[in-house]
């Protein structure tokens, strides 16, 4: 069996604060996992833990068969974990181009491909990261992860701040990556339908614990669970 990421009985948080409590899951190579949940349930913390930004109090995490617990962040990146953080965290004093170049690896996407995915970024390549618009920064954050040639892609609300037409493009690009296999994806999204249609599996977090786990398609159909765990019913009703 070919496991890309696995967590077992994971307890993690910031300093002494525990956020993730007893989280376990496994994800096979080439598959996409949607992580859903309300505000502050620990979605970002899960990704942060995979990148090594949190304190792991108990449990194991591993990627590609290697244990991650004690691995420094840059080794995780070199081992093939690509990360798009929620707050974008692009490097403000570097130009857009430099932001990509510092992250680029031979096995990753060529810069040209990133620019054809996001033509706007190509036009702004010489602008400093800090002066880019919110959406441009988001594109850059995604591009930066892709040029590193990730085998495991962690996306924390990648659609945020993007115009609908760009969301569409990005959606298709991600779908293509998913369909090509090879790259494993963990996707945190506020827009449940979008996330569920992109992923094969889903987990829903509640207060740092896994409240639901199953195939995405199933959850997409299960209105009552969605309403209960995500509170999305309101939107449905307003439409």
């Amino acid at each position, binding site marked *: 069996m070919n496991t890309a990421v696995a967590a077992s009985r994971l307890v993690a948080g910031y300093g002494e604060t525990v956020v993730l409590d007893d989280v376990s899951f496994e994800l096979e190579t080439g598959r996409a996992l949607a992580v859903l949940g309300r505000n502050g349930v620990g979605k970002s913390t899960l990704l942060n833990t995979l*990148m090594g930004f949190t304190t792991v109090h108990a449990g194991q995490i591993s990627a590609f068969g290697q244990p991650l617990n004690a691995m420094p962040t840059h080794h995780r990146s070199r081992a093939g974990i690509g990360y798009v953080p929620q707050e974008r965290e692009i490097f403000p004093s570097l130009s857009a181009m430099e932001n990509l*170049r510092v*992250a680029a690896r031979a096995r990753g996407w060529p810069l040209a491909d990133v620019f054809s995915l996001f033509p706007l970024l190509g036009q702004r390549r010489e602008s400093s990261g*800090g002066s880019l618009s919110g959406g441009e920064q988001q594109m850059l954050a995604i591009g930066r992860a892709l040029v590193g040639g990730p085998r495991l892609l962690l996306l924390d609300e990648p659609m945020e701040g993007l115009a609908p037409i760009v969301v569409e493009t990005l959606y298709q690009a991600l779908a293509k990556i998913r369909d090509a296999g090879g790259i494993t994806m963990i996707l945190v999204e506020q827009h449940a339908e979008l996330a569920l249609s992109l992923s094969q599996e889903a987990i829903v977090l509640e207060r740092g614990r896994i409240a639901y786990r199953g195939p995405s398609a199933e959850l997409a159909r299960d209105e009552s669970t969605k309403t209960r765990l995500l509170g999305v019913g309101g939107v449905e009703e307003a439409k």
Partner: protein
Amino acid sequence: MSEFTIVLDGIAYGMVLFIISVGLTVTMGLMRVVNLAHGSFAMIGGYVAAVAVGAGVPFIAAAFGAALVAGLTGALAEVLVYRPLYRKGELAQALMTFGFTFVVIAALTAIFGTSIKTLPLPEYMSGLVDIGFRMYPAYRLFLIAFGLALALALWLGIDRSLYGARLRTAVDNPRMAGAVGINVNRLFQLTFAGGCALAGLGGVVGSALLPLEPYYALRYLVLFLVVVGVGGVGNFKGSFVAAISLGVIDTVAKYFLPSAAAYLFYGAVLALLLWRPDGLMPARSAQ
């Protein structure tokens, strides 16, 4: 032609400022560590070279040896003193590096005594050279040439290179730099050692104008800080322009208006900074 000489003198003085401050542009400007210990590394370099030259080592070899020693000391200090600091904020850094400077001063005084150290220039640098209309100290010409070469090398090697960009990522956001695969610790250690080596080299090369003595590390610290500050934190072009401007302004003013000279250096700093609050050449992030 005296005016020309004065400008030349100013440039030479500015070059000394540049050569010694440039290491601080690396550690404080690029790495954003409030590095009040910069003078200590320059001083370590200078003392090492003084001992070496005293023991018969040729000047140039001693200078590079001193840079190496200062660099290694810097690498060690980075692990022991600086690494715990990066996250602690600028005030903690100021305190720590100040303490470090005290310790270095006390240690060097204990080893070498309280008198000043001189670093005799080699024959070929201590004489006068005919520059067409008069004789001029060779040492000052050497300073100008050396400063220019150093500026060019650093500009190409850091400002314009991927290495420079990597360094800036690590400074902007070390967490995220790690997440794109950069080994922040090693990068910082190397860079810091480089900055210290430059300081050491500067301490040696500039010793004829900034004499080596136990208090060196504190006495000239302000000068270095001012150059980096006026230049706009974190870029070599800025430090270079600032050092030369301040050197020339200071020197020319002292020549023409010796009675007001005491006010002129800091007056110039004040004026330049009020005119250009982001430094003469603001770093890109300051936009």
